[in-house]
């Protein structure tokens, strides 16, 4: 099970917010409460939350507006909405925009905790995928222009000899470039390298 899950509670009713904070704290989450959407967005670490439990009917900026803005300011934070009025249309819209769940007040603790776990898991996965992509991009940037050409050709399936012909150089030179590409990218096999090329979209540029 994942640990150290950071959860934000965005709820304008103080007693409700306190109660939710207390409940989530008792359920071993790392909780912080916010009284409005802006208060949450202004928090320096808002992007670091795994999950935000948000009242749909917040004054001034609604939960759905917050959802839109979070796409930029906290893209990996999963959203769980809670609402006082069961509103199917709102719920459908929120879910379509990627919310984890839409829960009616009074909120069942099991359902909420379950949703937060699912949200945190998705958040972590997205973060990992993003980190991996960032790392690959950095490595790719360290390649020389010629190395990048070799990277593209051999991951397309060309043999050293064919790549050499393509680039107007010898098979030996290609072999040396290829070894450096493997090393710089941290790839252990050609298959590994092909997967990286795919993740980076190398061939999409062609």
């Amino acid at each position, binding site marked *: 099970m994942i640990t150290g899950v950071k959860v934000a509670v965005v709820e304008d009713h103080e*007693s409700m917010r*306190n*109660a939710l904070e*207390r409940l989530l*704290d*008792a359920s071993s989450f790392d909780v912080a409460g916010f009284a409005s959407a802006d208060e949450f967005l202004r928090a320096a670490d808002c992007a670091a939350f795994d999950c935000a439990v948000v009242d749909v009917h917040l004054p001034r900026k609604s939960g759905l507006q917050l959802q839109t803005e979070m796409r930029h300011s906290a893209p990996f934070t999963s959203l769980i909405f809670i609402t006082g009025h069961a509103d199917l249309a709102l719920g459908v819209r929120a879910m379509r925009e990627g919310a984890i769940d839409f829960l009616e*007040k009074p*909120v069942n*603790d099991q359902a909420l905790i379950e949703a937060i776990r699912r949200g945190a898991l998705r958040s972590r996965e997205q973060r990992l995928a993003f980190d991996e992509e960032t790392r690959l991009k950095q490595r790719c940037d360290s390649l020389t222009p010629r190395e990048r050409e070799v990277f593209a050709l051999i991951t397309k399936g060309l043999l050293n000899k064919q790549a050499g012909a393509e680039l107007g150089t010898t098979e030996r030179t290609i072999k040396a470039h290829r070894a450096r590409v493997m090393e710089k990218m941290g790839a252990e096999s050609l298959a590994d390298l092909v997967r990286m090329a795919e993740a980076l979209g190398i061939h999409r540029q062609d």
Partner: protein
Amino acid sequence: MVSGGRLKKKVSSISRSPRRPVRELQRFETVLAGALSAIARVSAHEIDREIELWLGEICLTLDLDRSVLALLNRGVTHRWSREGIPTVPYGTTGMSVSPWTTRKVLAGEELVWSSISDLPNEARDYKQWVRKHGPKAQVALPLRVGNSIVGGITFGKFRSGRKWPSLVIRRLRLVAQVFAAALERKRIETELLSVRSELADASRSTMMGELAASIAHEVNQPLGAILSNAQAARRLLAAPASGVDKANDALNDIVEDAKRAGEVVTRVRALFKGDRTARLPIDPAGLLAEAESLLRSEAAIRMISLRVDAAPSLPPVLGDRVQLLQCVMNLAINAFDSIVSADSSLRETMLKANQQDSKWVRISVTDTGGGIDPAIADRMFDPFVSSKSDGMGMGLLIARSIVTSHGGRISAASNSAGGATVSFTLPVCPANAPTAP
């Protein structure tokens, strides 16, 4: 064919000569002036009564024996006949009495004849009927509203034939016009009234819906917090080492939120009780008279006779006039509904006030409707309980809430003779109570 035109020529020579018709015409003009101004002045529910009254006056003035007004689709709706002259039952269609006259009138023709010999050959069957039972002279005029004919009106003399001076015909035409307009006014007002009562129903149910939603929301908020705090406390107490203090905080918050929810309920209750209203001395007889005036047209439309019976010199009661009116009216409307849905032959509602003892005045509403359904007898004052298919079940609830907030009691029972009586008590105003402004 008997047409107004031909007969008018015939009669114009007569109308100049004898003196009697001149005096008759003068009297007729006076009666007409009265009729026209009265019909224009009365409210919609009095129009029917007024029309019948003036049919009689017109007949008496012109020495006629019978007048009948019939509407399309409804048959005879208004009539007058001299004693000894056969009357026509309400609802009789013109076709069943005199198809020939009816056809002509509905086609827009005016029929004026002074003796049977005036009737044309095409009216052979009609002539036979007239010889046997009918009038010896008659005027039949169409009733028009705008361009359409809505019915007809006849004036007949049975004891002898008579001449019809053209001025009389012109005036009777005016009468037909005014009556048709008045009946149309009544139809429109009745329609409006039903639209208005539908609107009132709709707005009442909208109001209830909104009220329910806002109560639900206000109670749900603290309820949600209570639930989450209680669930938190349960989790915290499962790990006593760290959790007891926090669980204690949760319990304190639960207490606060429970109080908050209680306050919402108290506020709602106060809203229904109307705690903030003024209590002033009210004359029970005056209260019933006021309720009667508000209910009169509704009763007339439903063909229910509404009567008030207040014991003489009742002491004033202490209460809120508007609320008590609403209470009486709710009970009376229920009574009307019961009479209408039971389709009782006796259609009567009685508003009664009498003194129960030195401290209480009793007000009761008695109807001749279907009585109280035993299936709902013990729950009939509860919310959303109704014997009516379209009932909200709020009328009696509101009535009870008003009576209880006045310190009185309300009860209901079926009458031995049929129908039901709902009665409530109100406290007699103490001697030192504030006086009404």
